[in-house]
């Protein structure tokens, strides 16, 4: 039944052919105004174009028919005729007829589905239960640190995507966690036909600020995100809202991104307002240097509001001290990435250098120890962090990576609460070494060693062994 297509296609084609030819003639006959020579000329050009197009398709159909006839007695499964829908014709008023697929099953329009499976062994010299980043107050549920010790299932990610109609597409990514909970990582609709370099997104999505923020965990070059992301952006900033991106009509890549959102996640919190609790602006540019090098750099600013945001830290006796922050946070990010591959061919060897600097400014009021003293006063803090990492690919399937990073807690102004909250000026830091083996484009096994000095006075030596596998639809990864 495989060779049902060409016959059907030809039939449809021959039915459409006279119609397509007749239609412009009909339009000509009905034209009320006399035709001037330029009209005639442009009509002739249109007809020429149509004729050439039909000739091309006739020729290709003939070829395919011959091929099909040749192929039938030999190996019917070795060759197949692609059910080639006729390209839409600008000149023809009759809609192009395409053959009905022979196997039009109910699931033909199912979204593309992909599944990421990942598992992890974690070993640490200091118990991760008491993990904290000294000098940085985070919500109690923050995903900072190496996670649980021992063997565990890492995040499994289920992704669905498809075009919705000629104007938009939809994407959803669900995360299945090791503790049997499910979260909606992303669920958004995106325009495909706005034009002028504009793309709009609505729903829940990873913010386009910085370089690493918009990348899914399975595309990270290390097991974990840098400390600066953990301490200043809650590991990865995602929000419910709107995004508008505009690509400049220049040969130089220049993209401007604007976002408005609810501002629910750290460093923001639900404020119960009608307006937006988050706004961001990101500007990125990039290009090539010769055949072997390319780069991208950007500057982003994220602003969030918080109201009664529950923050806290573990004090020296590992007791949780809960505080509440009300005010606004501004995070500025400078990001850059440089990639090298000989003649741009990254099949066997390549190098990627990447770095980001994040600076967070929080201002408002802080209530200290909400269940105890509960004293409230003005709060002002400027904190920053950076990381720099390089990943080298060798022997095709192997990659080795190094990352170094540091945070600066600054000297926050706690007002009346200074006595209870002021720190020592300790600067958390971490050094990481990674080696991974990629048996195919769809699988990866990784060993990571790290020395984590996020806790004042404690050095945590960490080892991770991780696998990441990708099933289903072939995902295309961003830069």
């Amino acid at each position, binding site marked *: 039944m495989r060779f049902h297509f060409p016959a059907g296609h030809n039939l449809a084609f021959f039915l459409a052919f006279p119609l397509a030819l007749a239609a412009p003639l009909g339009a000509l006959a009905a034209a009320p105004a006399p035709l001037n020579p330029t009209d005639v000329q442009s009509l002739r050009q249109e007809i020429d174009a149509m004729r050439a197009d039909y000739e091309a398709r006739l020729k290709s159909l003939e070829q395919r028919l011959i*091929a099909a006839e040749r192929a039938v007695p030999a190996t019917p499964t070795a060759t197949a005729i692609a059910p080639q829908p006729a390209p839409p014709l600008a000149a023809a008023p009759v809609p192009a007829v395409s053959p009905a697929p022979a196997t039009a099953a109910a699931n033909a329009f199912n979204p593309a589905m992909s599944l990421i499976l990942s598992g992890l062994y974690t070993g640490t010299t200091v118990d991760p239960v008491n993990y904290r980043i000294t000098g940085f107050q985070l919500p109690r549920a923050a995903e900072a640190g190496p996670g649980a010790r021992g063997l565990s299932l890492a995040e499994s990610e289920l992704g669905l995507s498809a075009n919705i109609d000629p104007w938009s597409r939809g994407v959803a990514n669900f995360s299945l966690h090791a503790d049997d909970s499910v979260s909606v990582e992303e669920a958004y609709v995106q325009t495909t036909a706005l034009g002028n370099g504009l793309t709009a997104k609505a729903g829940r999505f990873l913010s386009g600020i910085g370089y690493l923020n918009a990348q899914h965990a399975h595309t990270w070059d290390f097991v974990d995100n840098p400390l600066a992301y953990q301490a200043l952006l809650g590991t990865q900033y995602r929000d419910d809202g709107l995004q508008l991106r505009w690509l400049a009509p220049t040969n130089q890549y220049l993209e401007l991104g604007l976002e408005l959102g609810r501002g629910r996640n750290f460093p923001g919190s639900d404020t119960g307002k009608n307006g937006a609790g988050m706004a961001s602006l990101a500007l990125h540019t990039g290009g090539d240097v010769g055949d072997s090098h390319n780069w991208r750099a950007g500057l982003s600013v994220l602003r969030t509001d918080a109201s009664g945001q529950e923050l806290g830290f573990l004090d020296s006796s590992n007791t949780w001290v809960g505080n509440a922050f009300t005010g606004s946070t501004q995070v500025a990010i400078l990001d850059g990435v440089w990639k090298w591959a000989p003649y741009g061919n990254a099949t066997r060897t390549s190098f990627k250098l990447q770095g980001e600097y994040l600076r967070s400014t929080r201002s408002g009021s802080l209530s200290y120890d909400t269940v105890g003293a509960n004293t409230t006063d003005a709060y002002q803090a400027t904190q920053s962090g950076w990381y720099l990492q390089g990943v080298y690919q060798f022997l095709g399937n192997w990659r080795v990576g190094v990352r170094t990073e540091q945070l600066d807690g600054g000297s926050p102004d706690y007002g009346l609460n200074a006595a209870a909250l002021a720190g020592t000026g300790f600067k958390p830091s971490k050094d990481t070494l990674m080696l991974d083996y990629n048996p195919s*484009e769809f699988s990866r096994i990784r060993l990571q060693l790290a020395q984590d000095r996020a806790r004042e006075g404690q050095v945590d030596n960490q080892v991770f062994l991780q696998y990441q596998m990708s099933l289903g639809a072939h995902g295309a990864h961003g830069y």
Partner: protein
Amino acid sequence: MTNKRTLLLMLAAPLVLLAVPAHAAVRVFACEPEWGALAQELGGDLVDISVATSALQDPHQIQAKPSLIARARNAELVVCTGAELEIGWLPILLQQSGNPKVQEGQPGNFAAANFVRKLDVPGQLDRAQGDVHAAGNPHIQTDPRNIALVANALGARLQQIDPAHAGQYAQRLADFSQRWQQAMGRWTAQAAPLKGVAVVSQHKAFVYLYDWLGLKEVAVLEPKPGVEPSASHLQAVLVALKGTPARMSLYSAYQDSKPSDWLSRNAGVAAVKIPFTVGGTDGAKDLFGLFDDTLARLLAAGVKK
């Protein structure tokens, strides 16, 4: 206020310099060099072509880098191979381009593989078989008969995109087709001694070339498509070749020649670099040179003097 305006002007000034020059030529974004060369043959001065990849790059593995996003945003026609060859990078490029003209299904999106008969269509889709392409083998450009088919379709598409110059496109297509038919006659005559010659492929990239010339593929060095040849697999190929000897082993310009060189040393099978696309070798300067040089290399290694 004045200060603010001056600042804005200063920020905007470089944009003017960077802006795409506003001339009438149709901006064509070609995924691979062969389609850039074909669009050049068919469009001449009427098109402004930028080619996304070079002959030294593996077209399966390209990154959606900033320069490509910028060029896709400004393109009026995207000419690619299709058949999933660019699946790892083209979809994201088109999504990020914010350019509705070149989205799939639009006249500005041209996939060459849609216009030819495809070989190696898998009966079964399973990644256990390696990086298989559901639509069939996408490396269609190694058979000049395919180039002729794609030329007809691309000529028609250019006329559709730029109807004001339809006559000129039709003329250029007719001219190209005539030269191409002549060249094919010449190549077919030259290649007659290659018929039935047994060859080894490093990657399954030459099925269309073999189909055209009647070469016989007796072994493939990659155990599965896209999987690097392992020592044990190479040994197995070596043993198999004792029974069915091959004259030469073919690899593409972008590939590492090590596996073919190894076979050359251990089995005396000549390693032949195939330009694979325009620019792959010094001789493959345009589409005609691509086949002239491919044949010259095959004849030099494959025919006993």
